Each structure stands twice: as C-alpha cells, then as structure tokens.
C-alpha cells in the first residue's frame, strides 16, 4: 500500500468511516453464481437484440386478452433496439461489476451471502422487463412493464433492509413512479375510448388533434417525466441513491430512468399533435437541466452529484423531445446512448472508490489519480463524454443537441449553451476533486472486476468519439420511430464556424469560468438547495404524507367502535336514505289509510296492546320486566294473526313465543348478577375518553325515532300500493289438491316451497350447534 506521501496532513478519519480491511479474495472465490448467470443472460439478450436489429428488426403479435382488446405485440424497431441494446449491454457490464461489488458489500455489512438471492433475481427480472418495455407496442403492455420495473426498483433500493434511509427512499420511489405511471393507464383508456385501440402504431396513425388527444398526451408526458425524474417529480432520484451502487449504475442512470424518455420517444407522434404539451416538455426539461445542474455543483456525496447530473442530463432529452422534428429526434436517441455509457461508468467509479477508501464524500477524498491511474483515466474519459469534449461520444451528443437547439430558436440556443456549461462545470469539479490534488485517504487496491467495466465503457466512448457512425445508425433508426418519418443522423468533426461548434466553445468557456470561481458557484447552488428544501416538491410530498397521517389519526379517534355506534351507523343513514327516497318520488295519493272491516275491530285493540307492550319493553327497568313485556307482545301478535285468518301462523307464533320466553328466562337465570344498576363490573377498566354518556341521552331516542319513522314511511308506503292480482295465491290454492293436502299454507311450506323449510331446519341446526358450543363453559373450544 505504500507510505503516506510527505506533506500530507494526516487527517483523522471519522470513526464511522475508517478504511476498510483489504478486500479478501475469499468472497469472490466462492463465486457469485447468480450474478454470473444474470450476466450471461444479459449477454445473450444483447446478442439476440443486436442480431435482430442488424437483420432489420422483428415483430410478433399474439392475442392476450381479446375481450379487453389487449394484445401481446412486440416489435424490435429502431427505438426498441436502442433501448434494449442499452439495457442489456450496460447490464452485462454492471452485472459483472456487481458480482465483485455485492460480495464486498455483503462482507462489509456482515450479511450472509444467501442475500444474493434477494438481489440478482430482481436485477435479471429488471433487465428482462426493460427489453419488454422497449419492444412493447401496446399501451397497456407498456404499462405492465413500466410497473414491473418500478417494483424491481423498490426491492433493489430496499436491499439494505436495516437502513431506515433505504426504507424511506424505496417507498418514495415506489409512490412517485407508480402513481405517475397510473397517468399512462388513464391516457391509454382515454385513447381507447376515443379510437378503439390500445396499439401504439395504430394510434399513431389514427389520432388527430383535439381535447382528448391533448389530455392523453399530457398524461403520457407526466408518466414519462415521473419515471425519468424530471422536475417536479425528480426528488425521488437523489434519495434512491441509498441503493447499492450496481443498482444506481444500472437502474438509476441507464435503464429505469431511461424508460421514461423511452415512453416519450415512442408516443412522440401523439405528443406532437399538441403544441401545449411540447411547450410543457420544453419548460420541464429546462427546469430539470437547471435544477439538476445547479444542485450538482454543491453536492458532497459522490452519488448525489451523479444523481442530480442524471436529472439534468435527461432534461436535455426532454428538451429535445419538446423541440420535436427530425434533427431533435435523432439527437435525443444519440444522447440517451452516449449518456448511458458515460453515467454508468461514473457510477461504477464512485462505487469502486467508495469500496477502496471507505469514503463516499468529495470533501474527504482526493488525489486518487496517483494511486489508481487506470481508474482515473477511465473515469476521466467518462467525464469528458458527459461534458462533451472532443474525441468522445459526448462531443457528438452535444453537437447534435446544439444543432437541434439552434434550429429551434434563440431561447433554446441559450438554454443549450448554459446546460452544456453547467455540465462541464459540475462533472469537472467531480473528477478533479476526486482524482487530483493531495491524497487524503489511503486506498486499498481496487479489484480488477470493479475497474474493468469502467475501462470497457471508456474505450467504447473513445471509439464512438472517433467513429461516430457506430452509434449514428442506431440513433437514426430510433429517431425515425419517434419522428414517424425517416431521420438522418450524421455527426462528424467539422472544423468551421458552424453554430454547433460556436455553441460548444462558448459552453466550454462558461464551464471553465464556473470552475475557476468555485465559491460563487457553490453559494448559488446552496441557495437553490435551501429554497428547494423549503418550497420544493419533496417538501410537498412530505407534507402531504404527514397530513394524511394526521387526518387518518384524527378520523380514527373520532370513530367510536362499539356496538351502539355500529348499530346507530346502520339505523341513522338508513333513515336518512329513506327520507331522501321519500322526498325524491311523488307521494301524493301513495298513502292509503284503509278501512277496517269485520274482525278488524278486534284486531285494532290488540294492536294497541302490542304498542303499549312494546313501549313497556323498551322502557322496562329490569331485565325480567323486559322479558315479560316481550312475551305479552308476542302473544298479542299471535292473537292478531289468528284474527287475521292465519291459524297456522298463530299456532306457530304461540309455540315460538313460548320458546323465546323460556330461552330468555334461562339466559337471565344464568347470567352473572351484574347490573341493570350502573355499577361497573369487577374488571377495572380505564374508560378513557370514549363513550361519553352525558350527551347520549337524547341520541338513542332520536335514532330510534328516525328508525321508526323510516319504517313507517316504508311499510305504509308499500302496504298502500294498489292491490296486485293475487295470481300466485290463486295458483297455490288451485294446486293444493294436486299436492294431496287441504291446508294451503301447510302444503306450501312442505311441498311447493319445501326447500325453504329444509333451509330453515338447517338454520335451526346451526343455531343449536352454535349455542351448544358457546354455552358448554368452553369445554368444547
């Protein structure tokens, strides 16, 4: 490892971040089989997609849910090929990196290697979902893959289960991406309702401008912007850096956030029908560029710089989609490719540095260039790629960007120059603080598997920087899909004073200027950060969540979940609904009093007795009194039935009433002697704040009154209906002799409606079993 060089102050390292022990070979010797398997899978996917694209694309269309008009339609067109190749290609490299990184990560946190099973399946599923997402041609299918990636991301961010940071970050990412993805579903349904199809190519053909299209386009844009972490839905991405580095390098730089702009690219012909949406994209993109870029200038934690950089870089792509047209479409596709290889390389660098030094902050790192020249060079190429310096792919990404921006007006020109300047500034600061200057830490050697992928990506950047045609063809194909018309992408080195070159030069000058005055830049950035904390979207999110917690708690505290409220909650709304129904329909002439005849004159006093007995039951002072009054009610009603020419019913009513009285008396005898007096039981219970008895005095009679009135309105209402022909009754009377009986009612319950009687007997059986189980003093539980 070597001595600390002379002149270097021995900074005391903070207790929680001492340099880690030398990474043993032990962990990697056991072999991360799952990781290598995923890597192989990704490689296979890459090869298949490459071959497919080189052969001119492929497509397949299968019925999925025909009655819902959903189809499994995939097509490896230019756009699909670009994102699929990006996802699988970077996947191969990140997975290889991850096999080493994960073992070290688990070893440092003293976790079992079996935890790999919680990591690699999600990574592999994610890669597969990205390929599906890239090639899907049906909006609902796209939505499915969209959300599958969000779910994978949730579990990957939450991989470090014991960190509360990770929990918070995972939940935030899930909420923001999934809820914004619902906008995609709503847009799909809107378009389906209007045009009858979910298929993207068909929609692109059929759709014309109109309100539905504008609303659907806006919703699609929201879904894409949320996924790609654009302002104001950007706040989840810096938090998501709580995930292990391979996750950040893959999902949150090149794959998942790319899914958002993939959506924008795929449905761009729809978006283009609405100028408002395009302008909106421009605004959002610009805001993201500025917010991401400015905030990246003052971030200390390595991954946070890169997170804000990602927000800013995808802002470029969104601006290009806002500009629209052939040049911009091609430029956007090229941009995504170039950015992907640069950003994942930088993330992997951050991870390697953190693994080697145990530090993740720029303020505690420095001078690593001398220890790890290869890493410094590779990272430097990646940084140069991002900043758009010549001899890297980045130069062409910026050239195309400048061309498109210049072609769209002076405002976009200025934005473009500003953007590129900011990029150079923050990535320059990142690289310089990390690799130049005095060494502040004593890094252990970085395993080769952690630096090799970065080197590969750096080499790729340089190759494309020299021979841009390697990416141009793919970008042109992808751009053609976005533009719904052929696009030509022809980047090259031109040594003349064309606008793109001038813009590039001014951007570099601006960037260097910002680098030279770090203090001012930092101050401005911190000011923006403070403003964002106070009024930014994350604060709104947090406030919203806290408010819903408070509301929820308050509502629950008001709910009194005892039996009385449960019952009252049925009676009172029922009464109100009846009142509503009463008011809503014509009632003139609907209520007839009816006139008593014959035996009715005997029934009336009996009914009077029933009423009195009912009231006595309700107000009885003792339980026994209630039971006796209840039996009076029952027997009086039996007499009413008898007088109403229902002898069978009267008989059964007498028997049932006797049984009920006996059962009540038996229960009364067996109940323990507690209270109709207000003595509380022997159990001391803290009654607390619930069940205020004082105010309840008028509530019970009120609720009962409402219930009674509602019952009166309802029952009187239907009893007053004009008589319907008693066809059923006549039919039953007629058929009774066929059923070998004379008493119509008996024949009905035993023959015509015998099934009812069987079921009634079953109810008795169940009740007997229930009572027996309950009453046998728990012996049978």
């Amino acid at each position, binding site marked *: 490892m070597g001595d600390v060089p002379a002149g270097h102050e021995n900074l005391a390292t903070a207790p929680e971040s001492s340099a880690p022990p030398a990474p043993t070979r032990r962990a990697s010797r056991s072999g991360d089989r799952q990781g290598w398997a995923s890597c192989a899978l990704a490689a296979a996917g890459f090869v298949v997609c490459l071959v497919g694209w080189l052969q001119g694309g492929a497509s397949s269309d299968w019925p999925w849910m*025909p009655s819902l008009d959903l189809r499994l339609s995939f097509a490896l067109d230019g756009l699909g090929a670009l994102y699929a190749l990006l996802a699988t290609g970077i996947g191969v490299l990140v997975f290889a990196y991850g096999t080493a990184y994960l073992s070290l990560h688990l070893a440092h946190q003293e976790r079992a290697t079996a935890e790999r099973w919680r990591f690699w399946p999600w990574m592999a599923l994610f890669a597969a979902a990205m390929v599906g997402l890239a090639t899907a041609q049906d909006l609902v299918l796209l939505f499915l893959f969209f959300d599958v990636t969000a779910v994978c991301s949730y579990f990957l961010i939450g991989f470090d289960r014991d960190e509360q940071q990770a*929990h918070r970050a*995972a*939940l935030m990412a899930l*909420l923001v991406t999934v809820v914004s993805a*619902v906008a995609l579903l709503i847009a799909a349904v809107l378009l389906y309702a209007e045009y009858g199809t979910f298929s993207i190519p068909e929609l692109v053909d059929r759709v014309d401008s109109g309100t539905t299209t504008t609303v659907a386009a806006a919703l699609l844009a929201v879904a894409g912007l949320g996924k790609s972490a654009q302002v104001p839905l950007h706040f989840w991405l810096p938090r998501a850096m709580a995930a292990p580095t391979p996750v950040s390098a893959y999902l949150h730089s090149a794959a998942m956030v790319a899914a958002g702009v993939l959506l924008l690219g795929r449905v761009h012909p729809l978006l283009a029908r609405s100028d408002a949406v395009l302008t909106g994209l421009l605004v959002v993109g610009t805001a993201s560029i500025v917010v991401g870029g400015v905030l990246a200038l003052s971030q200390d934690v390595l991954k946070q710089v890169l997170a804000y950089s990602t927000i800013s870089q995808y802002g470029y792509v969104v601006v290009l989609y806002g500009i629209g047209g052939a040049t911009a479409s091609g430029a956007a596709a090229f941009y995504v490719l170039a950015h992907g290889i640069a950003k994942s390389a930088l993330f992997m660098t951050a991870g390697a540095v953190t693994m080697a030094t145990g530090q993740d902050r720029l303020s505690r790192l420095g001078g690593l260039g001398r220890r790890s020249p290869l890493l410094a060079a590779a990272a430097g190429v990646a940084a140069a790629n991002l900043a758009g310096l010549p001899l890297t792919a980045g130069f062409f990404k910026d050239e195309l960007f400048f061309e498109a921006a210049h072609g769209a007006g002076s405002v976009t020109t200025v934005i473009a120059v500003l953007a590129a300047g900011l990029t150079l500034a923050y990535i320059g600061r990142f690289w310089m603080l990390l690799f130049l200057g005095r060494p502040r830490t004593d890094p252990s050697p970085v395993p080769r598997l952690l630096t090799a992928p970065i080197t590969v990506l750096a080499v790729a950047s340089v190759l494309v920087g020299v021979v841009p045609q390697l990416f141009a063809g793919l970008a042109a194909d992808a751009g053609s899909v976005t533009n719904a018309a052929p696009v030509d992408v022809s980047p090259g080195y031109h040594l003349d004073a064309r606008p793109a070159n001038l813009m590039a030069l001014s951007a570099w000058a601006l960037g260097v200027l910002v680098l030279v005055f770090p203090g001012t830049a930092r101050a401005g950035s911190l000011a923006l950060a403070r403003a964002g904390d106070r009024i930014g979207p994350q604060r709104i999110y947090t406030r919203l969540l806290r408010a819903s917690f408070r509301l929820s708690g308050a509502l629950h505290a008001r709910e009194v979940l005892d039996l009385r409220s*449960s019952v009252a909650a049925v009676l009172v709304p029922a009464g109100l609904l009846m009142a509503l*129904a009463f008011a809503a329909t014509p009632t003139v002439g609907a209520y007839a009093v009816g006139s008593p005849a014959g035996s009715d004159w005997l029934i009336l006093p009996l009914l009077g007795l029933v009423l009195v007995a009912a009231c006595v039951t309700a107000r009885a002072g003792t339980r026994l009194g209630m039971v006796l009054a209840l039996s009076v009610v029952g027997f009086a009603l039996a007499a009413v039935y008898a007088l109403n020419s229902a002898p069978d019913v009267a008989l059964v009513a007498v028997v049932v009433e006797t049984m009920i009285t006996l059962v009540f008396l038996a229960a009364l005898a067996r109940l323990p002697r507690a209270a109709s007096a207000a003595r509380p039981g022997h159990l001391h219970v803290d009654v607390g704040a619930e069940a205020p008895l004082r105010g309840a005095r008028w509530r019970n009679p009120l609720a009962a009154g409402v219930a009674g009135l509602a019952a009166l309105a309802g029952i009187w209402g239907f009893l007053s209906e004009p008589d319907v022909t008693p066809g059923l009754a006549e039919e039953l009377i007629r058929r009774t002799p066929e059923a070998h009986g004379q008493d119509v009612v008996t024949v009905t319950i035993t023959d015509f409606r015998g*099934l009812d009687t069987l079921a009634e007997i079953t109810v008795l059986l169940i009740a007997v079993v229930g009572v027996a189980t309950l009453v046998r003093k728990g012996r049978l539980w």
Partner: protein
Amino acid sequence: MTLLATVLLVPWVAGALLVGLDGRRRPLAWSAVAVLAVGLVLLVALTVRVASAGPVQLVTGGWPAGVGIVLRADALGATFAVVSQLVLLVAAAHEAIPGPRARSFPGLVVLLAAGLTGLFLTGDVFNFYVFFEVAMTASYALAAYGGRPRQLRAALVFAAVNLLGSFIFLLSVAGTYRITGSLAMADVADGVLRAGANAGLLVAVGFFVAFSTKLGLFPFHFWLPTVYAGSRPAVAAILSGAVANIGGYGLIRFGAGIFPAQLRMAATALVVLGAASIVYGGVLAVSRGDTAELLAYSAIGQVGYVLVAVGVGGPVGLAAAVFYSVVNALNKALLFLTAGLRGPLVAGAFVVGALSVAGVPPAAGFVGKLTLFRTGVAAGSPALVVLLLVGSALSLLYMFMNYQRQFWRSDPAAGTTVSPLPRRALVAVLALLVLALGLWAEPLWQLSQQAADLFARESG
C-alpha cells in the same frame, strides 16, 4: 339440471353430517376440505356449462316457476359461487393443517358453503332470504371461533348488526311481495316496472341498506374493523372473501336485475356513497398499526369501487363491478391469511396481495383497475377518474408501509418462529393464482361480461 341440484346438495348434506361430529380430529377436518374441493369442481363445471350454453334453470318439485322455487345458474351467480367456494376451501385448509380449535368449525364452514351456493344460485326472493340466513347464522357461529374475548366481541357486533340488516331485508321482501305479487325474481322484475315509484324506491332502499351493511360500505361500515380485526385470520378471510360477496352479488342482482329503474334514479347517490367509502377506507387505513385493522379499512375502501361501478352501470360498469368483486375477494382472503404467518414465502405472498390491492401489474388488481378506469371514462367524469387515482395512491401507501413494517423492520422482540410449510405453501398458491389472473384475466373478464349482459336490456 342435475348438476345444479348436486352442487347444492353435496355441501348441504355433508355439512349437516359433519357438524355433529368432532371437527378437531384431522381426518374430519380434511374430509370437510375434500367436500369443499368436490363442490368447487362441480361449481367450475357448472360455470363452464353456463358460460358456453347459457343459464340453467330448475324448479323444485317439478312445479311451474313461481309455484315452486326457481333455482337458476347464470354467469353472475356462478362466478360468485365459484370464488366464494374457493375462499372457503382455502380457509378451511388453512385451519385443517394445524387442526381446528373448535369441533364445529369444519361442519360450519361446509354449511356456510351450502348457504352461499344456494344464495348465489337461487332465483326466488324469499329463498334468497332463507339461504342468506343459513349463511349468516353459520358465520355468526364461526365468528366466535377461537373463543378469546376479542373474537367473542367481534362475533357479537357482527351478529347484532347483521341481524338488523337481515330483518330490514325481510321487511323489503315483504314489500316486494306486496307490490309485485310474486316471489320469483323474473316475475318480480316485471312487477316492479308496473309498481308505483314511491313504493318501489322505498323497498329498493331497504335492500340497499341490507346489502351495504353486509359489504361494509360507508356509512354502514362501523362494525367492520371490530369484526375483521378481532376474529381469527381464517375467519376474517372467510368473512371478507366469501360472506361479503353476498353484498356485492345482491347489489348487482337486486339493483341492476330487479330494480333497474330505481338504480338509475339513485345512480348519483350510489356513486357519491362509493366515493366516500373509497376515500374514507383509504385515509383511515394509513395510520393503522395493526395489520388486520388495516386490512379491514382497506376492505371498506375496496368495496367502494364496486358500488361506484354499479352506480355508473351499463355493460362496462356492471362487468367491472363483477370482476372487481372477484379480485377483491381473492385479495382479501390472501392478505388476511398471510397476516398471521411468518417465513420465507409469506413476504412474497403479501407483496402480491399488496400489489393487487393497489392495482399494480402484474397482479390481478391491475386488470380490475383498468376496467374501473374504463368505467370512469365511459361515465365521462374526470372527478371519478381522479377519485380512482387517489384511491390507488392511498392503497399503495398503506399497503407498502405495512409491508415494510412487517417484513423489513427486523423486530428482535418477535421470535422468528417460522410457520409450518403447508400453510405457507397454501398462501403461496393463492398468490400465484392472483398473479396468473393478472397475467391472463380473459376467462374471468368474459364471465363478467356475460354477467353484465344479462342485465343489458333493463339497464340499457
């Protein structure tokens, strides 16, 4: 015809026999499971028959329809019967694995199955009431399973409130006979069209109150948290996944089938009540610490969707209501059963349930949400679409907060006793079913559409 009769008689007879024997013995418990499995197979066969050849009808005693009791299997009844039977089967198996704690448990579950099957396959209003009482009495007895104070209290609240609902239902049945003169559902539907508007609406309100109480819609929901949280997981799964279906089925059958004019009149009120349920259930679930209570409030929210769909009506709305009822029943059964378990497969099963409740693909709930959004768009109401969005966001929030609390926060106090493998495997199978339904919802959606088409003439 004989299939219909067999489907009804098998659980009935078997249940009557089983309930008297000692269900704590494993062979008995497993024979109850076997009976339920046979019943499920028969019901699936019936459903296939109904889906391909149309409704099947049978009148008891060979009497003409109206004189005898009409039993009728159509797409709506068959679908609900199958899903309820499935939930009962899974819950019974869940308890049979360690062995039931009460001797009457297996018999009661089978009798409950008989009651529910009869209820879903009957075409007679009073017969519906009687089978309704069979099912409810069995569930009152089941709610006390476990014998602890919490369960007893849950059973008491459940019984008292639902008995009130039952008697309100009976009052409405009396009213129905009075205004239409018949008891067979088809004849009643015709009769209602001729009856006075006032009486018809009042009787319909009575039915609505009874079914909403059963489902636990706002504002009739107060009993639900006490009961679902207080009862044992298997019973909570039964109550929310099988018994609650009575409410959903009733709303559709009585609302769209028998009282379509009244349904149209009350459409706005229904949608408002449904919206209140969705928001209330969702907001209250956010701060719940106890998983069972959270699931109870979630249930209140989820059935709001069904009511909204019924309120919007039309072929799209009714099909969405049927589909969502089925998905919700499966979700709730899955979630309640996982609530008490610990171990490797449990977290995965819970996640599938959580994703389904929130409407995230690839779980079944996403197709449900898709159909609900189609309903909202068909109703032409942006407010409705926003409401559905808010409901989904709330369910995502509370489900995953709960997931993190249960499975990510390592609680050193809780001993990590892993639940027995068969129980976990059962729950995993149910989760796989929910996933499969999400990836290929074709058969269920076709059934739902057939069910909705039954009412196409009336609610058109």
